[in-house]
């Protein structure tokens, strides 16, 4: 069976799809941050309000790594 079309472009698209699986890791990380924040907040609700900013910073840093895999996917789709 012959393959029609550009094989390199197919590889780039498959690679872009595979790169996006890295975003699942970021999802796990963000869930971990928020879950731990919530379990801590339920143990000591008085201290919870002061730590929401820290939680969001943690979310942002965890999410940044997912953004890098998204960036690789975008580069494969549009730049390579």
């Amino acid at each position, binding site marked *: 069976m012959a393959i029609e079309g550009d094989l390199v472009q197919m590889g780039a698209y498959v690679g872009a799809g595979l790169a996006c699986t890295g975003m699942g890791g970021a999802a796990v990380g963000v869930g971990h941050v928020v879950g731990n924040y919530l379990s801590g907040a339920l143990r000591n609700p008085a201290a919870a309000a002061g730590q929401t*900013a820290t939680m969001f910073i943690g979310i942002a840093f965890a999410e940044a790594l997912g953004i*890098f895999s998204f960036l690789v996917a975008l580069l494969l789709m549009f730049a390579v």
Partner: protein
Amino acid sequence: MATEDGGSGLNIHPMDQFLVKPLFGNDGTVSMFTVTNVTLWLAIAVVCVVALMVLGTRGRAIVPSRSQSIAEVIYGFVHKMVEDIAGKEGLKYFPYIFTLFIFILVANVIGLLPKSFTTTSHIAVTATMAIAVFLVVTVLGFVKNGASFLSLFWISSAPLVLRPILALIEVISYFVRPVSHSIRLAGNMMAGHAVIKVFAGFAVVYWIAPASIVAITAIYALETLVVCIQAYVFTILTCVYLNDALHPHH
């Protein structure tokens, strides 16, 4: 990017809403100074910010009106955020951070209106703000601390063997800041709006249409939350970077 499925009658173009088009003229070419729909919606966002902050607080009533209390709540919220994260010294840069926050918030919320254009879904728009923040913070760090700003990369609490490796990692993570800072906002806006559009595309099939409408409503509610959180995250990271520039010693 369009996913066309001729067999089932589905014709979904989730990315078409992000096309940059010139407002005047039909040739469709966009050059440096072309007035496009991005220009229009950026201008609308600025006008809305000015209307809220200037006209809303014009009365300066002791018992605030509705628009005045919205402006006061946002002002107080950002003021507290800057003070908590960047400290008292950071309050000098409060106007810049507040401008960023209110502009991103209003641009995001306006983008949620039907038939409108989400300017913050374009990396060109968010990268401009992120690179500006990066340059401001870097220059500020060197002006305030001189060469000792570089101690941000040299973690003195770590074992001596690990310090060069950590310094390398810190330098890399410092320079990818504008990348993650801009793509986080643009990616979140783009993905959310594209998902709404995909579900809107399903609505043409009559037996999925009710589920599709429920899904659009739910995702719209989620997006309303996301646009506020992303404006908050962009601002809070700006405060964190500012804090690094003002107090580089860990």
